[in-house]
């Protein structure tokens, strides 16, 4: 009797050890693994949310066409938050609690990502954020949350340094939005101004949603600024460049990556020719960008192909890193293993940005930046050598 009991206990214990964790882990069946995402898919910020989700879809379709993750097909669950913070929280809770996602991607804008952080931390779900890299997301480092990208501050410092070296002794102008993004741009700019003792002759601030920049640009012209940092996002930068064209002035202009999308150049027309931009993803006009578009063609619909922009690349890279980490966990991936493998991510090539690495206590990939310049003739951004 004792022998039988011992054998039964051993069998039970081995069953628990072998099959237990995999069975207990949510979002995984024998044939499927669920990856969740919350993005702004409606309203003006949909331009970034839809593009990022297309990037996730491309990476997932690519993995699924290669047989999935160790034989399991990836199911992608996407929720719209409309860029409303309360709905980002609810969307994340739905994806985790109702759809039982195994891992998360994306996570909407910067304010939304910050607000949803307690939900992600409490649940412990492995998450790779790719849309809005802000310091709060990785400082302090959270065990289960990883961020692919580069900080806004570093981006703006890189751009201003480059423009300052190319245009020594010139007069500078800056305009920023009256929100978190604008403050970050201004802080980055100010740090270079101090270090390089730049001569700033115009410093403006506009209200989010402002459409008319005629008086701001007139002031910029009157100030005699020769190098101009346009701190708008999309519509604002277009309006500023059009206004400068009307005033017949063409300062050396720099823009930041949230506005570095190809349709902007079409709307700017000749006024956008030659503007500088900074980014950590490859431009579509480069070899890597072209290769990415070719890869995307058979994997997404015609409509989705039209929605591709730089955020598609950030989404693609994040999804690739997450899928690779889950894959390395073998047949029975768990949250603990996925988090550990994400931490072990070392120089993962995605083809759309510099290799991605994390490390023990390092949850931010700190991507390499590059400067690019707009070419109005081909409506593209080209890398500056």
């Amino acid at each position, binding site marked *: 009797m004792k022998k039988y009991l011992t054998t039964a206990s051993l069998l039970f214990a081995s069953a628990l050890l072998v099959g237990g964790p995999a069975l207990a882990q949510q979002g995984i069946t024998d044939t499927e693994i669920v990856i969740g995402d919350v993005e702004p*898919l409606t309203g003006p910020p949909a331009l970034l949310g839809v593009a990022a989700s297309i990037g996730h879809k491309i990476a997932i379709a690519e993995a699924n066409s290669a047989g999935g993750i160790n034989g399991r097909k990836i199911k992608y669950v996407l929720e719209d938050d*409309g860029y*409303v913070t309360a709905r980002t929280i609810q969307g994340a809770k739905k994806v985790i609690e109702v759809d039982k996602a195994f891992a998360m991607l994306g996570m909407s804008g910067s304010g939304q990502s910050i607000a949803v952080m307690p939900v992600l931390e409490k649940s412990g779900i492995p998450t790779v954020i790719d849309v809005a890299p802000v310091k709060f997301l990785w400082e302090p480092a959270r065990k289960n949350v990883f961020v692919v990208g580069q900080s806004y501050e570093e981006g703006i410092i890189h751009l201003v340094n480059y423009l300052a070296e190319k245009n020594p002794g010139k007069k500078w102008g800056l305009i920023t939005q009256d929100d978190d993004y604008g403050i970050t741009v201004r802080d980055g700019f100010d740090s270079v101004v101090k270090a390089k003792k730049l001569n700033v002759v115009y410093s403006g601030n506009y209200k989010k949603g402002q459409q008319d920049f005629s008086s701001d640009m007139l002031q910029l012209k009157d100030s005699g600024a020769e190098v101009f940092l346009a701190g708008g996002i999309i519509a604002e930068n277009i309006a500023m460049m059009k206004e400068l064209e009307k005033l017949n002035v063409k300062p050396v202009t720099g823009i930041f990556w949230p506005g570095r999308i190809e349709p902007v150049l079409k709307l700017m027309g000749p006024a956008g020719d030659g503007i500088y931009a900074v980014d950590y993803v490859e431009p579509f006009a480069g070899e890597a960008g072209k290769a990415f578009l070719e890869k995307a063609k058979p994997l997404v619909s015609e409509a989705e192909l039209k929605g591709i922009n730089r955020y598609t690349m950030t989404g693609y890279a994040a999804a690739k890193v997450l899928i690779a980490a889950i894959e390395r966990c073998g047949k029975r991936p768990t949250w603990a293993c996925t988090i550990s493998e994400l931490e072990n991510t070392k120089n993962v090539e995605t083809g759309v940005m510099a290799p991605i690495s994390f490390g023990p206590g390092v949850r931010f990939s700190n991507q390499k930046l590059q400067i690019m310049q707009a070419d109005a003739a081909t409506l593209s951004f080209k890398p500056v050598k």
Partner: protein
Amino acid sequence: MRTGDYKQTYGELVALVDSPPVWLWSAVAVAALIVAPYALNAYALSFVTIILITVVGTLGLNILTGYTGLISLGHVGFLVTGAYGYAVLVSKYQMHPLVGFLGAGVVPAIASLIVGAPSLRLKGLYLAITTLAFSFIINTVILEARTLTNGARGIPVQRPEIFGISFDSDTAFTWLCLGVAILTLFATLNIRRSRVGRAFVAIRDNDTAARVMGINLHAYKLLAFVTSAFITGISGALYGIYLSFVSVEGFPFLLSIEALAILIVGGLGSALGTVLGTVLIVLLPEATRLVFSLFSAQMDALFSTGAQELKSMLYGLVIILFLRFQPRGLVGLWHDIRRTWVHWPLRY
């Protein structure tokens, strides 16, 4: 035979509820809400929490718009001021959460005096535009007062711990919201049946007649603004804690419109209507999604990826339908059902 629902004493007229079964049903509803966190997952529970927070805010608006007849399009201004009042006191100056809640009420109440003053001369559309302007001005003030509010960077807010009780878990936080919602409901019901409440209603129905009766219009209109803003501010604090991060972006103008939609759908001037309207408006998109998902998985996906556009359409549709077919709102519908039940088979 019973021929009607007559109030025969003054006590009956000012009673909180008019029959014992109402107490019973209310107790059952509260008990269900207390055990809800044990029966619901985090997603479903988030709806309960949002409903409770919204009930507090819309009860606040109901005092101003429902009882007193003063239309406010800028109540989100009081909501955001309340959230900042709490966040600044508790997160920045490490004060006790109860002091934070007090601040969350007092700061918007003071702000309401500024917007309330023009209401002494303005009515209707003019007042609505004034309150709308206030909500934009308050956002600019918050963004500019960086030393106090962190400007556009916002303030992270932790879940509170009050007298050793932690409200960190979703369950505990829902109970906190439930407690505040019950207190607010009792407060507004009591205001309505008091001398002050009757003065508010008199102003709403005919302010000239109210003045002739000796009601001080200036004092009572301002009191309505202050009371409404105080309650809305408390709701703002709860909303800020729920978001865990208070920033101007977290309080879009759409919240003001949603609150007005709740009052219209629920029934203007009724506390019960406010509660019913909140439940309907908050749950409508999710309920619609559930119904459609029974027919097709594609419809479910459509609600997930186009949720916000569909929500806006649903809200619009519901408001139009209620204004056309049931202008007294859900509470009017409830009264009709109750009357039919009592008088059946007679029509009246």
